[in-house]
């Protein structure tokens, strides 16, 4: 539509949020403003998606020199990798304003700032710019959790903040290392991500900084065993913040791995991929099994979210096209399923004043539309064919089998682990008999229904006809594996079951 669409998408919400914070606006005005801005972002996002040409390279590029002496620039762009993360960040937020109508002004303002910062981190094509947005996006979450969270919010807030910042600092060190290495090898300064792929990194130092990046992203994703901030944070944060954290911010961690680690540290990744993949699978199983022991709906979903993120991360570490594409697809599928489930739990909480599984029951009979929507999101999260969850999950398992048979087999158990706790929860909350808590449960209002309808439809459309979506991703993922990658061949060679696959067509 116009040249600076990405900048507008980043700074419109941030500036609006800051202005809201400084003016004595009422919470009603704040909410309406937030809604309008997020709708504007939604329209821009759709426009961007429609005009995205799937060339495989960065599109909608904006580049301005910022600190020329160090090669730092204000550089934005979208390609097949971040398009879908960007869509998740720009399309889902209006729901929050429509569902949570009675929060404070600062709540909505912080939400706006979070959205802008996330879009900035997603679109940044310069490492320093990425880092700045990466840090900014933690701030609104800090305030939302600390100010508007649940009763035990303070320790949870401190934990997530310090944990994430510790990771970020490691990443900062690694970014500086990359810049310096680039200067050493090419005798000029650059912090552009695309330049880093040219680097030839080897030796102990490279491994050290590889892990700096990995840990930073692993904390954000969160990858086992760096997930321990998650259950408390997701449970204590206000539901909108939980939604933002799980639906979008966690995905930026995965996106970071795809963007920074896969192309830049290809050699190190090949060496440690099996370790990281195991971490993903173990995390999936660990969190999935822990979920069954939860009594608090939100905490159960928190574990469920962590469990699915393990699978998504696994897809990235498998280093083949199917798994990587599956991961990117699953990013949206997960945002629209588990993310939306968090919002639904928020609705249940506001209607019954309880999140405890034991206090609920029989909602399906009282609120059939709500139950239908909830069930569709739930089925997408357990990866039922016909919903978006299946496509991504299947591609990841397919790729994982190629990467390593046993990793693939254990990754497949997500099919079973997921249904165990989800069905149990659905049984106790939606089926069985009603009780005083739920006997007056109101179905979705018209506004709420219309809010969720597009997402529910998206879940189904993305499950039945995924090709138009996949075709936006595959050109870029194909490029990722088009280069000379000794890496993949070496990994497959360790795979005993499919020895004949060692011949890579590079």
């Amino acid at each position, binding site marked *: 539509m116009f040249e600076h669409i990405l900048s507008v998408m980043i700074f419109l919400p941030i500036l609006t949020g800051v202005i809201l914070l400084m003016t004595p606006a009422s919470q009603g005005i704040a909410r309406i403003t937030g809604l309008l801005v997020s709708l504007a972002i939604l329209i821009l996002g759709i426009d961007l998606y429609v005009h995205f040409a799937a060339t495989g390279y960065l599109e909608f590029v904006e580049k301005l020199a910022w600190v020329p002496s160090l090669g730092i620039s204000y550089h934005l762009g979208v390609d097949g990798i971040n398009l879908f993360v960007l869509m998740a960040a720009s399309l889902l937020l209006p729901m929050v304003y429509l569902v949570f109508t009675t929060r404070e002004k600062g709540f909505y303002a912080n939400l706006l700032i979070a959205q802008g910062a996330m879009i900035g981190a997603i679109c940044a094509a310069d490492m320093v710019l990425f880092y700045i947005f990466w840090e900014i996006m933690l701030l609104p979450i800090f305030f939302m959790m600390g100010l508007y969270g649940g009763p035990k919010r303070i320790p949870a807030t401190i934990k997530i903040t310090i944990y994430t910042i510790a990771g970020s600092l490691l990443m900062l060190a690694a970014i500086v290392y990359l810049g310096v290495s680039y200067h050493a090898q090419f005798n000029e300064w650059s912090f552009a991500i695309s330049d880093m792929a040219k680097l030839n990194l080897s030796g102990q130092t490279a491994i050290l900084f590889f892990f700096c990046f990995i840990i930073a992203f692993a904390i954000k994703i969160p990858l086992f065993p760096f997930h321990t901030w998650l259950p408390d944070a997701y449970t204590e944060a206000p539901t909108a913040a939980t939604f933002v954290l799980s639906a979008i911010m966690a995905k930026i961690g995965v996106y970071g791995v795809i963007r920074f680690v896969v192309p830049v540290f290809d050699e190190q990744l090949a060496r440690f991929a099996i370790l990281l993949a195991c971490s993903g699978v173990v995390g999936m199983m660990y969190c999935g099994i*822990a979920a069954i022991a939860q009594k608090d709906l939100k905490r159960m979903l928190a574990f469920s979210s962590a469990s699915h993120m393990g699978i998504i991360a696994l897809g990235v570490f498998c280093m083949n096209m*199917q798994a990587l594409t599956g991961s990117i697809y699953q990013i949206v599928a997960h945002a629209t399923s588990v993310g939306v489930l968090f919002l639904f739990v928020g609705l249940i909480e506001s209607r019954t004043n309880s999140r405890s599984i034991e206090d609920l029951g029989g909602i399906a009979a009282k609120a059939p539309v709500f139950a239908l929507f909830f069930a569709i999101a739930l089925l997408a999260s357990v990866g039922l064919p016909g919903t978006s969850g299946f496509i991504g999950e*299947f591609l990841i*398992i397919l790729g994982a089998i190629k990467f390593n048979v046993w990793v693939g087999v254990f990754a497949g158990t997500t099919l079973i682990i997921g249904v165990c706790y989800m069905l149990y929860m659905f049984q106790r909350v939606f*089926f069985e008999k009603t009780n005083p808590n739920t006997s007056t449960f109101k179905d979705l209002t018209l506004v709420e229904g219309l809010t969720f309808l597009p997402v529910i439809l998206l879940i189904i459309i993305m499950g039945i006809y995924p090709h138009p979506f996949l075709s936006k991703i595959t050109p870029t993922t194909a490029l990722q594996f088009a280069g000379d990658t000794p890496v993949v061949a070496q990994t497959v060679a360790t795979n005993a079951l499919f020895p004949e*696959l060692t011949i890579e067509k590079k």
Partner: protein
Amino acid sequence: MELSVNYLGLIPLFPLMGAVIIGLLHVFTCNRTRLPEKVYGILACIGPILSFILALRVWVALKALPPESRFLTHDVFTWISVGEFNVSMGFLADPLACLFLLFVTFIGTLIHIYSIGYMSGDVNYGKFFAYMNLFLGSMLVLVLGDGPLVMFVGWEGVGLCSYLLISFYSEDRANVVAGNKAFIVNRIGDLGFVLGMAFLFWGIGSGGFDYLSLSVNADNLAPGIALAVCLLFFIGATGKSAQIPLYVWLPDAMAGPTPVSALIHAATMVTAGVYMVARFSFLYAGVELAGSVIAWVGILTALLAAIFAMYQDDIKKILAYSTVSQLGYMFAGVGVAAYSAGIFHVFTHAFFKALLFLGAGSIIYALHHEQNIWKMGGLKAKMPITYVTMVIGALALAGCPPFSGFFSKDEILYCAFATGHYGIWLVGIVVAAMTAFYTFRMIFIVFHGQARDQEKFDHAHEPPSVMTIPLIILAVGAIFAGFFNLPGVFGGNLMVSQWLEPSLTEVHPYTSTFVEIFVVVASIAAFAVGLKLAWSKYGQGATKPEFSGFSRFAYNKFYVDEAFDRVLVQPYRALGATIWKNIEPNVTDAPVKGASRLYMMLGNAFKVFQAGYVRVYAIYMVVGLSLMTLFLSQSLN
């Protein structure tokens, strides 16, 4: 080779559309003014009938083609295309799919009609038909899918509907738990299916991922991988088709409404595993070991379930175990590479088992939801149509010539014998006798003798014609379905097997006429023995026996459910609780907590220096400055 047509996709689409329309109508009206039941009933039957008509058209179109090129395909759209993995949402109708198509839509339609009567008065009438339509659509996707992945869509879809319909009366916790069990156990099988697909794809390497391309490229598979793929797919089949060790969900699935048990848990969905093995006959034919495993698992399941069926007192549970047992026969058939025999048994079984379930449904309907056979008795006089049709079904199930079950079961046993699987044949004969026994035990107790519960007996009546007409139609099918595949010894020419030939990779075993006659006689003898025993024990009114010893063990189903609970379910829950209560705080989070504790400790240690007196800070300053000066002067010199 194959002919592209543009109407295959419509066959599953009709019921799916029906499901969406009915579902939306129900969801938006159920808590306001409810729509009349007629609306739902008519809407629900439109989809299945249209599908049945199209299925007939497919059949006609296939017949018109020369046998070796009887393949109709319909590529609707590109589904998933990532790198070398390309799958389209495509449908394939070949003789095998066509056979399934015909009986699934036919029986599906009948059961929809039957349900109009059976479900009347239920508050969730609309929901029921939405689920039923959704099920039929998914089942048709399963049957028509042109490759394993599209089949998997239907495969999981029917699993979902099965779950929804088992937990249909969702107020009762036990029903929902049964539904959960079905879904989870099926998912265990589905894991095998998914892994099988992945192995198959990477093992074959290149080429399309639809049956026709796969069967051409099947030789590229290394033997080890072929075995793994076959066994993994079979795990999927054991889940869906209730074989050892995953059969446990099917008896519990009887918690759903009876038409559901008839359609899903007897006639169609549970046979999907057999269908899959037959679909992949091009793989299984080359891997003898996998075939043996399947055959033995199948026949042992048949034996085990037949033992359980002899001791049950819930009429639906008897039929459920009987289904498991008959499914075992089918797997024994496809396991010994007699794919057409297995499929033929699926075909006949669909008729007589649906009939028996619907008959049981009318009894339950007439007795106001009484399912215990020891509270029935003497119903012959009150419900003549149900009685006659159920006896026909029972004769077919028990394998009495010339009813359909006899021919199809005999064909399996003959193939097992002729291919040298004498052990399987022997067990099969024993199971045949047991089948006759438990079937007629049920018939005698329910219909003969005296009424055991007089009050219920007095209220019993024949159900409305919307329910009895499907019974009669199915009874006709149960009598005559067997004649489609008469073997040579009865003067037939195995019509169904010949029809299926283009779809299957099989060699029909031929032996001497003497062997054929011997096998037939053995089957008939087994039936006679079973019937005689049942008559002598239960023929003239019997009371519920006291169980002890082995029979008590069998009555409690060998405590398999309890064992699963102890070995899998409880430990799984305990593991979840342990992770949450112990491992997470004390192991995984320990480094984080440790880091913060270390930080606190260091702070406490350094606190000593923070004396609070200005003088002390002055000393630090003096000492520090002195040291700096000293250091500077040293380094300058």
